[in-house]
């Protein structure tokens, strides 16, 4: 009798305890989310404020009147859409080559045995830690000798030789395909080239989308490479445009600057929300086994 009571009491307590823990979990998760989102909120809020609100003490969380002047001013200082388009040109030019060639090389590494294959694959892994800072200057000198500095060629062309991390990622992906697929195709007289384009590429669409997204993010967020190679005002990218924003206005204009940052972040956040699934899948495939 009494022991049953104890049991019941325990059960009651544990339900209460569970509720409390769940509440605590939500509390922490939401508090953390606030911190994560706060910079974005602050950016948007500032971009919609009039000067007086921006420099108000005490802090004004929301604009007392909403203005779009900061956006107008931002577009006057820097042709944001044009610079975005320039970034898109680089990214587009790069991604096609990078994804296709990386898949080609990954197919070679995953499905063929040739002399030195394992050694070359070790070299590939080693280049993932590639001393970028070491090769940066000699490569720059060669491009400048070729007269191609201040063009997008140095930023795009190297992608057409594949990317070590993408090759690594796709090789692992290809190795999950059963060999029987291509064996029957080979018996039907298919060429390796056809197996690659007709079987491997279509089957690995999710993986290809994932690396295309990474390539896009890499280009969109890259500053150093673009800083080194691009000088002309009309060729600047969105990163360079933002980086040079303050030098163009002479003083730091926080309102327009936040408006410009906001516009620059919208595409990337939209892409993240839209293609979330691919990011998650991609990291699962690569990160854990890497």
């Amino acid at each position, binding site marked *: 009798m009494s022991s049953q009571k104890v049991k019941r009491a325990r059960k009651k307590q544990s339900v209460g305890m569970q509720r409390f823990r769940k509440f605590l*979990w*939500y509390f*922490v*998760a939401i508090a*953390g989310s606030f911190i*994560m*989102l*706060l*910079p974005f909120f*602050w*950016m948007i809020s*500032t971009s919609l404020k009039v000067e007086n609100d*921006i*420099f108000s*003490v005490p*802090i004004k969380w929301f604009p007392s009147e909403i203005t779009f002047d900061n956006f107008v001013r931002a577009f006057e200082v820097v042709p944001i859409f044009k610079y975005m388009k320039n970034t898109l040109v680089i990214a587009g030019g790069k991604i096609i080559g990078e994804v296709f060639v990386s898949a080609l*090389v990954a*197919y*070679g*590494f995953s499905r*063929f*045995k040739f002399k030195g294959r394992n050694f*070359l694959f070790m070299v590939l892994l080693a280049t993932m*830690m590639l*001393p970028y800072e*070491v*090769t940066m*200057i*000699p490569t720059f*000198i*060669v491009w400048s000798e070729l007269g191609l500095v201040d063009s997008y060629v140095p930023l795009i062309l*190297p992608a*057409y*030789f*594949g990317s070590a991390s993408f*090759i690594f990622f796709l090789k692992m992906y290809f190795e999950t395909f059963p060999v029987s697929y291509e064996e029957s195709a080979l018996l039907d007289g298919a060429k*390796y080239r056809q197996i690659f384009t007709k079987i491997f590429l279509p089957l690995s669409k999710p993986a290809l989308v994932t690396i295309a997204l990474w390539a896009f*993010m890499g280009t969109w*967020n890259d*500053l*150093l490479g673009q*800083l*080194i190679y691009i000088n002309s005002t009309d060729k600047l990218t969105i*990163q360079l445009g*933002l*980086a040079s924003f303050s030098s163009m206005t002479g003083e730091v204009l926080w309102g327009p600057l*936040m408006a*410009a*940052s906001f516009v*620059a972040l919208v595409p*990337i*956040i939209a892409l*993240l929300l839209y293609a*979330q699934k691919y*990011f*998650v899948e991609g*990291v*699962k495939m690569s*990160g*854990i086994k890497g």
Partner: protein
Amino acid sequence: MKKQRVGFLFILPWLIGLILFTLLPMIAAAYISLTDWSIVGDAHFIGFENYKNIFKSPEFYKSLWITVRYAILAVPLIIITSLSMAVMLDRGHKGVSVFRVIYYMPAIVSGVAVAIVFKWILDPNFGLINSVLAIFNIQGPDWLYDPDWVLPSYLVMAVWGAGGSILTYLAALKDIPQDLYGAAMIDGANTFQKVKFVTVPLMTPIIFYNLILGIIGAFRKFTDAYVLGGAGKEGNFIMVHLYEEAFSNYNMGYATAIAWILFAIILTLTIIVNATKKYWVHTE
């Protein structure tokens, strides 16, 4: 035999790229670092003069010291933060996928825009942090305008963007067999003990992986430092120093020598961390 050749053809583009964009530039870099090349004019062979000068340069030591301090503090902070986030987000509560995106987003949207936003957030007079502190009558520091507060400014930003690796941790957490937790519970372990004795040991391989990537990333930090700078040149991370020597002062030889030293540091650290692997990384 034919199959051998076909396979080789498939990897050929990468092999050519390796020679053109890695091997040849590395050989060239070895030579350039021994010259006084300044892009215009001829290069003269000067032996190890650049290296000698670097090791005598207070500016080099300063940027190295900043980078080292940042790496020592930021790398563990990021690992602890992202691992805690991942453990929290591993629960199956409703809405967890929304939280996952929110925590992950800051890492994805890196780049100049975020650096600029942080410059504004850290503004001593009207920035978000000091304005909030002012509500509680606390006088906030001058952040990027006070040499002593430059490093903490960068750490604030690093922790905010720590979510980049939560997805790798989450994937690893899913792989932990649930019966291990059950066994721990039967032995009377509380949540903290479960994390300490089950989760963390089984996560060490992925922590190791993120540790290596974190160290490399810290030593190659550029974008934030380039945009934010910092008082007393305290934001002059080693990559920024290298960039300025090469592309503002056109000391190509000198900058290439810095690049080799940086590479040697990263390589040495990677080897050292790798050597500690057997003492703390759990293997099946």
